[in-house]
């Protein structure tokens, strides 16, 4: 079993134009989530919304390592992954706001996003339930020889659910083209990881199953990109799955709905250092990006999200009739 601790702050092989694109996506995710929190505060989102803040580098680093035909599944904290995989922020925001123009006709909501055209086979609200489903998606790609890789995002809490382990076992046994990306943000709602497991590293779970694993800094977008790239080619070569643990810090509260306090000064401190966006910005400058280019991207991201919100707010809610539609496929 091969284990690698990746940390890629060395000069990247990816060209600047592409990196700027990633930067813009990370900014778009951040702005999207900040708007969602704000809209929730105004009572415009019913239910809840789970910000992917602190997961931007994971989403962008990982999805940027994929081909368009590759597939992803994620959690209720999945807005960022969908944006990173290329889904239209308008349709995503409309879904979060429960509008008929949403990617799921406004009936899925913030926790159930899907965009088959972009290879997004859904975000799921039962913790860990999508992990075996992702395994099956990958199995189908293998049996159909499509060369697709499936990426599955989940959290540290999910890594304690039985289905996660069952999937580690089946995926390793059947060598399916699956990349398991764990966003370890150290919390499951309020439960810190040291109250969830005896060992610090979730990636170690792979050891007992003969699965390859990688641990890395989840706020280093390049490190995530490199790890997922290597895991994806490993999978495409038919060598099987990889478990990648991306360490981050949850700074925002669990969800906009959460009853719990989110004032965690210690986490706030670490977050200031960890925040992938200023960090990546500094790196880009080091790589010769112009301040103006970066500001341009910042404006574009803000514009994209502004437009998405406008679009969503202008869209009607689904009709009562639609309540009984799509219960069964024809």
């Amino acid at each position, binding site marked *: 079993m091969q284990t690698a601790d990746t940390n890629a702050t060395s000069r990247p092989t990816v060209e600047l134009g592409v990196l700027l694109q990633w930067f813009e996506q990370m900014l778009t995710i951040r702005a999207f989530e900040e708007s969602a929190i704000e809209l929730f505060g105004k009572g415009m989102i019913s239910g809840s919304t789970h910000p992917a803040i602190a997961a931007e580098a994971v989403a962008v680093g990982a999805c940027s390592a994929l081909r368009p035909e590759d597939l992803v599944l994620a959690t209720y904290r999945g807005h960022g992954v969908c944006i990173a995989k290329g889904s239209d922020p308008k349709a995503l925001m409309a879904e979060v706001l*429960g509008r008929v123009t949403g990617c799921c006709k*406004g009936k899925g909501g913030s926790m159930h996003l899907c965009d088959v055209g972009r290879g997004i086979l859904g975000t799921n*609200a039962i913790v860990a339930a999508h992990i075996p489903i992702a395994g099956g998606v990958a199995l189908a790609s293998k049996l159909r020889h499509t060369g697709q890789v499936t990426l599955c995002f989940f959290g540290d809490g999910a890594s*304690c659910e039985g289905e996660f382990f069952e999937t580690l076992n089946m995926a390793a046994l059947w060598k399916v083209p699956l990349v398991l990306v764990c966003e370890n943000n150290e919390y499951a709602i309020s439960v810190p990881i040291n109250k*969830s497991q005896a060992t610090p590293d979730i990636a170690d779970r792979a050891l007992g199953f003969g699965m390859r694993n990688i641990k890395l800094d989840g706020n280093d977008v390049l490190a995530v990109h490199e790890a997922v790239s290597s895991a994806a080619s490993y999978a495409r070569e038919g060598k099987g799955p990889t478990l990648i643990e991306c360490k981050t810090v949850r700074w925002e509260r669990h969800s906009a709905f959460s009853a719990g306090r989110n004032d965690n000064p210690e986490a706030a401190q670490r977050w200031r250092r960890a925040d992938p966006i200023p960090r990546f910005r500094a790196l880009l400058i080091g790589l010769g990006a112009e301040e103006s280019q970066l500001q341009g991207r910042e404006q574009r991201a803000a514009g994209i999200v502004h437009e998405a919100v406008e679009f969503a707010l202008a869209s009607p809610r*689904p009709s009562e009739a*639609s309540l009984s539609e799509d219960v069964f496929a024809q």
Partner: protein
Amino acid sequence: MRSLTMSQAINEALREEMRSQPTLILLGQDIGPYGGTFGVYRGLFEEFGEDRVRDGPLCESATVGFAIGAAINGMRTVVELEFMDFVTVAMDQIVNQAAKMHYFFGGQINVPMVIRTPIVSRMGMGSQHSQSLEAWFMHVPGLKIAIPSNAYDAKGLLKTALRDSNPVLFVENVRLYSTKSEVPETDYSIPFGQARVLREGSDLTMVAISGTVPVALAAADQLAQKEVSVEVVDPRTLNPFDIETLAGSLRKTGKVLITHDGYRTAGVGAEIGQRLAEEAFNYLDAPILRVTGQDVPVTSGDLHLAMVPNCDTLVKASMELMGKG
């Protein structure tokens, strides 16, 4: 008398029993410093410490399994499942283990465990965070089920659950947590298997559970203005089930409407309706009506409010049942 919210009443019942029963422990996730997903556990971690108020890893099935194990080895346990939708993840431990163990071990082993789980209906949380699945558990011999609709009943029923030697599924409703009712300072408990007549009436019996109880009471008010006298009955526990009080009311009114948020087909209303027909068929002067959640996976957002009963639908259905539709 002082009044408490249902969430305060549940908290108080737990606190009092934690004080009087040193072997009682609480298991779950987010039940510690966080105070429970919906705040019902506030202060318990601080008072009883982490040995007895145990936040654990996110694995409901093993959490319930551990709770069963501790319960059969000298402790009493309470497990919180954060949303009723998640019973699916722990289904085997609840149904094939906790409920049957006393029986298949010939009475040698008791499982004094309470599984608390909130219905999160009418909050727009979507398909996997909104279901009322209590009907399934009426189909599980060996499991008791309490489903209170107000603070007074919640405290009294939880006290009984916490003193019972059997597994109890205690179904709460987040929409009711903030509703207040009078709760005595003195210790009391409410026996299982006693329905409560919340409003007396002579024309029609409205059977409501959990979140539909306040809706039924509001509808009864409106119906009174239309000269329809409605008796509102809350079974309060689904197993054991007090068919007598319901049948008695039916014999008086001759008409029954059953309402709940859960899906219509094979829901609680099906059993209650069929059972009442078996008990008092000759007193029925119209078919028993069900006004329930529709048979569609719950949507997110406000749209899903259209799939559950509300005051208007109850009034309209009642008028039809009265032949005044």
